[in-house]
């Protein structure tokens, strides 16, 4: 059968080039949608008259930006003194606040709450004296701690317990992620305001009310609202991948339950938790709309400042800030990847831990019940408040805003946004993003884990000594969309693609649906990478090697063995990719300009009317309903691989 043999050889050859080709396509997309546009903006930072580092030096020597570090160049000896003074002062303040907590517990009137509140106020008050950068890092750290505290118990509940609606709940954890900041601001102001339901409740049970609005606390809480679900999903995916047999082995060797958890389960969860923390830190480090809407200019972060610089067309200063921001994020990412590499993982073949029923009465479940209450306050209350805002007319409840949406769907005139078109576009772009970002993410995850170079390049091209550094470089570069300011990406797309570039005398401009999907995929693929790479790293290489020895091509081994084994990560990454696409605003609004390619978040912003939030929140409620439904469907489809 010569024919079939040549056919077989052809398909093998095709498979051999498939991976390098996929790598090439991924690289090309990144150059067009990310590196080139962002490069055009960042180049401003070093392109004064000729090549100059002056703009960066200006920022680094300005006390407004870096506080006590500003003199580091002129007077290096002066810096430690300032920092030491701050450290000593803060330590003393924190120490006395800490001591006050147990003391209060022993006091006859038990004012623990007051003492805890004082401790928190002290913690918030000791922001490092490093100017705008110092404050930005500080609020990102607080936000990361809050997101972990809110997110980890959720991962435990979802991964280890079985209860009706668990799967749906798991799907819905992606919802906060997609909500436009204006909606979240509306929900938070309504929920936690002076006369909001939380304070009503506190008053009803005789507790002191809280003044949360326009403070660092509310910013941290809103950041946790966005990012705790992220921690939950990533850690839950890893937890479901823990091999039950390893735990059973430890138990049979005499380890206590706690010991088995500490020595077997925790090491397998740490990389996921650290990934969640890293992503949260980077996102909150770069946060700006939420800070502006809930805190105000007083709580400006570097990104808020950068956004304002761009709006003032001070592009050189903006570029310098963006370069420094990116360096911080990428530096963190690099440090994290070194850690991820160093964490040795046992070979894993997944046979998940058995789930326990949720309902019962013991300390563990009571704690989970208390956690459930916190989730209700932090997540359900703001979302419910958003929904309420969409039916609150100037003089009482009304459905007029929904009527407006329906009517506008029928009669949208020139330049007006049509809600029906926005819903359709959002879903189309979301699916398109899935189809592009998931393969992209898998390709980059493969390139960034051990043996990555051998998959894409001829054997022996890269010396072993360099392979590790190369992998980490790919891993860091893969995180670039997260590490670069969203404002800068938007500006770059506007100047680099929408304005167009001269190519051989003709102007080439990019915009519309395809460019939007490409931009969304560029923003979304790092999620796939971060969800898949840790699992790939833990794969048993021998499985792949056996398959290859038995004659499977690289691509075949990938599709038949590796991908199924890391499917929980792929599914988690896919849900995020969809969520990123649905929620994306900055790039979409720029690339959709002048076409009918606007999405739901764009419609929400457009419907902000004078004297009413009703139409914007009604559109936002539609967004909420449509995406919640979509997540459940996606999870049903992707979930086949997970159980």
């Amino acid at each position: 059968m010569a024919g079939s043999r040549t056919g077989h050889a052809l398909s093998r050859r095709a498979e051999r080039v498939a991976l390098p080709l996929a790598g090439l396509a991924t690289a090309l997309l990144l150059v067009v949608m990310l590196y080139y546009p962002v490069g055009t903006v960042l180049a401003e930072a070093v392109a004064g008259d000729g090549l100059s580092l002056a703009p960066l030096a200006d920022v680094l020597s300005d006390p407004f930006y870096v506080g006590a570090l500003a003199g580091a160049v002129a007077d290096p000896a002066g810096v430690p003194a300032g920092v030491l003074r701050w450290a000593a002062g803060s330590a003393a303040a924190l120490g006395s606040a800490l001591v006050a907590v147990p003391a209060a517990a022993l006091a006859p009137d038990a004012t623990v709450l007051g003492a805890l509140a004082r401790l928190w106020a002290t913690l918030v008050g000791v922001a490092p004296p490093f100017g705008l950068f110092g404050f930005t890092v500080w609020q990102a750290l607080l936000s990361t701690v809050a997101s972990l505290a809110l997110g980890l118990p959720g991962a435990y509940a979802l991964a280890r317990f079985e209860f009706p609606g668990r799967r749906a709940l798991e799907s819905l954890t992606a919802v906060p992620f997609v909500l436009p900041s204006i909606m979240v601001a509306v929900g938070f102001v309504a929920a936690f305001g002076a006369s909001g339901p939380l304070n009503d409740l506190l008053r009803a049970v005789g507790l002191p009310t809280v003044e949360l609005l326009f403070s660092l606390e509310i910013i941290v809480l809103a950041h946790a609202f966005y990012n705790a679900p992220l921690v939950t999903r990533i850690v839950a995916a890893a937890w479901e991948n823990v091999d039950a047999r390893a735990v059973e082995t430890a138990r049979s060797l005499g380890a206590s339950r706690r010991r088995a958890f500490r020595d077997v389960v925790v090491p397998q969860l740490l990389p996921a938790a650290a990934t969640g923390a890293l992503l949260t830190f980077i996102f909150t480090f770069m946060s700006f709309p939420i800070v502006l809407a809930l805190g105000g200019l007083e709580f400006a972060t570097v990104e808020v400042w950068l956004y304002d610089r761009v709006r003032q067309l001070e592009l050189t200063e903006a570029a310098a800030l963006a370069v420094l921001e990116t360096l911080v994020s990428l530096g963190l990412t690099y440090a994290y990847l070194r850690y991820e590499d160093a964490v040795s993982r046992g070979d894993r073949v997944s046979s998940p831990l058995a789930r326990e029923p949720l309902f019962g009465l013991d300390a563990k479940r009571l704690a989970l019940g208390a956690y459930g209450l916190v989730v209700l306050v932090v997540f359900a209350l703001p979302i419910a408040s958003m929904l309420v805002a969409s039916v609150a007319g100037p003089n009482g409840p009304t459905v007029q805003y929904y009527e407006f949406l329906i009517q506008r769907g029928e009669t949208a005139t020139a330049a007006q946004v049509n809600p029906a078109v926005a819903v359709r576009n959002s879903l189309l772009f979301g699916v398109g993003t899935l189809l592009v970002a998931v393969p992209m993410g898998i390709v980059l995850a493969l390139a960034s884990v051990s043996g990555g170079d051998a998959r894409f390049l001829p054997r022996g091209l890269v010396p072993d000594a360099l392979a590790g550094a190369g992998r980490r470089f790919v891993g860091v570069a893969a995180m670039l969309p997260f590490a670069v300011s969203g404002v800068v990406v938007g500006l770059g797309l506007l100047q680099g693609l929408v304005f167009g570039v001269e190519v051989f005398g003709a102007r080439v401009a990019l915009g519309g649906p395809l460019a939007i999907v490409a931009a969304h995929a560029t923003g979304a693929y790092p999620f796939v990478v971060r969800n898949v790479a840790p699992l790939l790293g833990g794969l048993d290489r021998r499985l792949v090697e056996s398959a290859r020895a038995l004659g499977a091509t690289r691509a075949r081994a990938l599709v038949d063995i590796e991908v199924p084994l890391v499917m929980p990560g792929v599914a988690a990454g896919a849900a995020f990719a969809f969520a990123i696409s649905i929620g994306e605003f900055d790039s979409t609004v720029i690339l959709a300009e002048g076409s009918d390619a606007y999405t739901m978040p764009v419609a929400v912003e457009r419907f902000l009317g004078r004297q009413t939030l009703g139409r914007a929140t009604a559109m936002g409620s539609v967004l909420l309903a449509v995406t919640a439904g979509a997540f459940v469907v996606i999870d049903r489809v992707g979930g086949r691989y997970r159980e």
Partner: protein
Amino acid sequence: MSRKTEGRTASNGRTRRAYLAAAGTLGATALAGCAGFSGGGEPSGTLTVATYSSWVEDDGAAGPWLKDAFEAEYPDVTVEYTTPDSGLNNFIRRKQEGAPIDADVYVGLNVDQMIRIDSELDEALFDDVSGDLSNGDAVKSDLRFDPDGRAVPYDTGYIALVFDESAVDRPTTFDDLVSPGWEDTLLAQNAQSSDPGRAFLLWTVKQYGADGYLDYWRDLQDNGVTILDSWDEAYNNAYSNGERPMVVSYSTDQVYANRYDQDMTRHQVAFLNDQGYANPEGMARFADTDSPDTAAAFMDFMLTPEAQGEIAVRNVQFPAIPEEEANLTDEFAEYAKVPADPVTFTYDELKGNLNGWVEDWARAIAQG
């Protein structure tokens, strides 16, 4: 009222609401023959008007009415709106980068934007239309904010404080805002991004001078002022929720409250020192337009008494021509408040100072 923080896109559809069409034809018959423009034949083709999104999206917005009325007057013209996300900056950057500009008219300029254009660009973004408008003379002279005659005012507003009289006393001076009776009461906006926010900042510069305004803002901060990014966030979200009893807004606030039959308790307007900061809005013709006559005809049309009345009521701003000449509703006349002593900075006073004032202010606030 420009809100330059939102996304925008353009979509096409050609449905007219009956009453708009009726108003349009009425206007058209009343105006036949009024519109003068220099140059060749009857205006025709597509006219692209760049503007801010509330001009086209708001309830009963001025934009759709204007489009219908103008097209009824000139059947060969189609008006298309475009609302770029970054507003005027989009066109400044296009000019700087040598990218094409495909709009003919810009609606929604104020004086600081003219200053930005002149400091950022060497070539002309807009051209001087004063010679091409037959209705240009109708504009009140004290509103003209562009010495080069490019931007022509089409409406004007006054920045004032809106407050809740059940929660706080009426403030009458700037000193009131920094005294104990008004602690933690004021919501203002980011002067870098919001028109009313910037107007309020300039008002304090007017009051305390370039050397004293920052001290006043430090006192405001000590007294608990909150500065949110946009008018929407400050007014619709925070003020409407009762989070603070006072907000920097427009003196036409009661027109809205009356339109929706709201209780006037939360819609009291306060003019500090009997002043209000005047903020005229203008339109201009792009220098690169390939239909200068149609653009001029459109701008001329916006200055007719009929259009001036409609724009004022729909945009909830005062007309740019004398009020007795514009067809205003009684409701508007009753509820739109005018300060006894309007103040404002001229182009020449702001040039060379504005950026420094705003940036020093922003740094002071962010350090707070």
